[in-house]
Structures are given as structure tokens and as C-alpha cells.
């Protein structure tokens, strides 16, 4: 709650032209924006360009933001639209983008044995390879729901579609990815 209040103060100040407040807002949201853009465009440098465009658009339009609405949903909407526009402008390109050096870190809870940790770099490569088979909308729905962890209602609001469209699109995306994973020998797979 306190976080939300702080965020509202920050948004209000930034909308009034306070550059420092806007820079704080960028600092708070940049990781989420870059990560979302990266999962959609498949390249970190491209994701950086998309994120910059997103924040500049935010700077120009923030004063129109209705504080009654959820800011994150609005930001996801701008990000997804910018990433999909970027993909359309660029056309299909090689799916395998070079991974950053620090993406090879393994993650684990403190005290977890090294062999219990998941290899995120390999998982990321697999996702980018298989996600190439998804349509932009399927990819956007999957990224927001499965990677960003939004609820069905939040995804629907962010993308301007109905919840049933989100559910259907998510099922299609999951099926395509699951089939790809099974083809490559990962997991058993059960229809859901």
C-alpha cells in the first residue's frame, strides 16, 4: 500500500514536469520494461531501444495517465505495443540473440546446492528459439501471463482484449511451446 502511495506521488510529480521524479520512475520500472521487451523482441540491444522509446513516450503522455488506473498495466500495454511494432518494422530476424555474460549465472535460494539450481541461460535460449513459432499476440500473452506473472484480468486490460481471448491465446501458446519442448526432449507434457 505504502509502495502504491509512493508510486502515485512519483507519477504525479513526474507528470507535473519533475525530471528527478521521472528518472526515479524509470529506475523503478526499467528492469520490468526491458525484460518484457526482451522476451518479445528476442534481443537485448533491441529491447534497450524499445525500452527507451517506451519511457520517452511515457514522459510525453504521463500527464494524461488516470491515477485511478493501474500504472503497471498501462506501462505493460505501452511496452508490448512498442515491442510488437518493433518486430513488425524489423521483420523476422535470427531467433538466437547473443546472451549477456551475466545471464549465465545460475539462480537458487541461499544454501541450494549448485546442481539444484536452474540453468537460466539454457532456458532463455530454448524460449527464444521456440517462441519464434508464436504469433506476436500469442507471445505477448504468454510473456505477460507466464513470465511476468500477471493475472488473466491484468493481461486482458494490458492488451485491450477479453479475458476469454487471453485464456484461448494462452492455451494456443502453451501448446505450441509444449510441443516444441517435447520435440526437443524436454519434459513429458500433459494436456492442460
Amino acid at each position, binding site marked *: 500500500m505504502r509502495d502504491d502511495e509512493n508510486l502515485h506521488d512519483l507519477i504525479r510529480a513526474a507528470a507535473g514536469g519533475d525530471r528527478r521524479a521521472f528518472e526515479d520512475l524509470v529506475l523503478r520500472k526499467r528492469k520490468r520494461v526491458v525484460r518484457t521487451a526482451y522476451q518479445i523482441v528476442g534481443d537485448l540491444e533491441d529491447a534497450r531501444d524499445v525500452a527507451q522509446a517506451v519511457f520517452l513516450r511515457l514522459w510525453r503522455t504521463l500527464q494524461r495517465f488516470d491515477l485511478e488506473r493501474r500504472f503497471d498495466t498501462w506501462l505493460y500495454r505501452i511496452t508490448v505495443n512498442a515491442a510488437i511494432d518493433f518486430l513488425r518494422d524489423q521483420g523476422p530476424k535470427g531467433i538466437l540473440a547473443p546472451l549477456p555474460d551475466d545471464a549465465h549465472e545460475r539462480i537458487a535460494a541461499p544454501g541450494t546446492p549448485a546442481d539444484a539450481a536452474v540453468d*537460466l541461460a539454457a*532456458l532463455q535460449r530454448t524460449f527464444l528459439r521456440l517462441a519464434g513459432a508464436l504469433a506476436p499476440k500469442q507471445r505477448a500473452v*504468454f510473456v505477460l501471463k507466464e513470465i511476468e*506473472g500477471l493475472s488473466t484480468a491484468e493481461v486482458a486490460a494490458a492488451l485491450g482484449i477479453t479475458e476469454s481471448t487471453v485464456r484461448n491465446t494462452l492455451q494456443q501458446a502453451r501448446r505450441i511451446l509444449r510441443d516444441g519442448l517435447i520435440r526437443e526432449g524436454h519434459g513429458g507434457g500433459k494436456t492442460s
Partner: protein
Amino acid sequence: MSAHVDPETLADASGPSRILMVDHLAACPACREAVARFDPSLLFSLLSRAPIPERILDAVSAEVSHAATPAPARGGAAWEAWPGTRRAVAAAVAAGAVLTGLAAWMSRGPAPVLLPVAAVPAAAAVEVTPDAAISQVVDMTVGDTQVVMVYNGKLSL
């Protein structure tokens, strides 16, 4: 956390409960195996933990900070925020409009020739029968195109 992740619950979860499940999944091979058996695409939820290099994040901040020039000025470009600049631009636009109008007025062609009815050239393709109601005939012929305006006081529209 000792409990294991239920794949079906994970598939529908969002918010803080999902964060806890994904945290657990990241550290528990048994749960990853169970999730992979149920639907391996659910393992991609772990990508929310993928690190983004600081250099990329810093580049975003630096570029945005550089490009977002002072004052978004409620919907307008940054220069609109400066009253002096606004006044100067408005004055320049007004002066431009006056000069453009003046230039157009000075470069206009000769005024239409007003001829009495009787003076309409006999060779004109348009013949105007003299009539008391016709007070004026204006010949606006340009080159080969003959344009004649006839003023008829009796005409009602």
C-alpha cells in the same frame, strides 16, 4: 519452504503466491521435474528471474534522461514551456502570415476589366443581349479561356 509446487496451481497463479512458487521452483529439481511432466512450458515462468545486465539498464536510464528535455509541459513539446520562446514563435508566425499575404497581393494579376454592356467584344463567343436589368458585364478572360460575368438585377435565386 517445504511444500512442493502443484503444477496445476502454478498454471493459474498470479501475484505474490506465484512469486513464492517460482522461487521454490528455481531451487527444487523435484518440482521442476513434476512441472515439466505436467506442462514443460510452465518452466518458462523461471525467466522472470533471468538477470538483465546493468549496462543495459543504465543505458536506458542515461538515454531517457538525456532525451527527456526539461518540462513535459502537459502534452506539449519542451519548448512550449518557455513563455519567451512561445511569444517569439507566435510573433514570427504572425509576421510570416502578414508577409505572405502582402506578397500574394502584390503579385496578383491586373484587376478585371469592367466594360459597359455595349462594349462586349463582338467576337466574343458569349453573346449578351442588352437588357435593362443587366447593369454590368465583367470580362475575366485569361488566355484562350473566356470568362464573362454578367450582373442581372432581376435575377432572383
